[in-house]
């Protein structure tokens, strides 16, 4: 039974136009580096998130190329200037076809 991918997303509110706010996003992911040996001494294959993107109404506002040195349950925080309300879309991609998408409202007054 597949378990749903867990994420923790923080978009501050209220947000006034012109404010610069910090967006925070965490996703549950083992981020297996590919360097670790298993109990039998064999290398556990790499399994990581490789790319994180945030779009606001279709425009890319932040992106990260991610390597194995990013810790498990990868966390990213970045700033965003509040210009107008919209929908934030967060996407993660990774090894073994990993893909996940979350949306959050960005309410600007």
């Amino acid at each position, binding site marked *: 039974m597949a*378990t749903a991918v*867990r*994420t*923790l997303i*923080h978009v501050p509110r209220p947000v006034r136009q012109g404010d610069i706010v910090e967006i*925070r996003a*965490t996703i*549950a992911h*083992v*981020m297996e580096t590919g360097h670790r040996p298993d109990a039998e001494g064999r290398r556990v294959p790499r399994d990581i998130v490789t790319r994180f993107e945030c779009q606001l109404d279709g425009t890319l506002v932040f992106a990260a190329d991610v390597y194995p040195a990013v*810790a*498990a*349950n990868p*966390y990213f*925080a970045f700033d965003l200037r509040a210009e107008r309300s919209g929908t934030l879309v967060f996407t993660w991609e990774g090894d073994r076809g990993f893909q996940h998408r979350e949306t959050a409202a960005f309410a600007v007054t």
Partner: protein
Amino acid sequence: MRRGGRAAAAALALLGALAACVAGSAPASHTANGADTRRSGFEDMSRALQALQRDETQNPGMLWVQEGEALWARRAGDGRSCAGCHGAEAARVANASARYPVFDVETRRPLTLAGRIDRCRQRHLGLPGQGPDGDEVLALSAWLAQRARGLPIEAADDARLEPWRARGESLWRRRMGQLDLACGLCHDERAGEKLGGAVIPQGHPAGYPTYRLEWQTLGSLQRRIRGCIVGVRAEPFAPDADESLALEVWLQRRAAGMRIEGVAVRP
């Protein structure tokens, strides 16, 4: 000095040292004038990790807390849910993390919160058992811990738990494993000192389940105890073994009055 005399002196010195080790010291929880010397492992961490624990938008344990909140309300096959009996947002059991372990009349043994969650889910929701580190049991434990944040750990005055507390204390003071160490030797007598560059904590249960950086995931108190015992190269106890339950009862008593931290972050 004659040879025989020197040997006798050496033997006496050795016996004295052994006696001092085996006798053990009283729990160093209060000084002679009554000041509480207990401290959470939180205080031994760097500011960066303290900030990480405090911030609910960054604490990785919140991934489980969030999941636990959803699981609480989720209906099982026959429509029942935790919330159905225990109240939405655990209103009726908000202090559960501070109260457990309790004495269970059914099994005549202590019952930990994780054990209670696991049993409830099996019995009332028809879900399979998971153990304390099962994903959903962990998530629910995490959520309940966060709900109880700030509450003092209760003293568990139940007389029926006293033999378990005593057994737990005796295990705590007993040397074990190839390294021949007792829990108390590090966590009572040498707490605050360094072992391999890391500060030795007093080892209180107030922050469990904990996101331990060493595990890169959330884990239960049972998992930590098992890790410690393996660390001294002894055979670990099963989670539902008498010894495991006794240790949890002892740890709760030892930490009585300290505040529940919610999901902690620890190295």
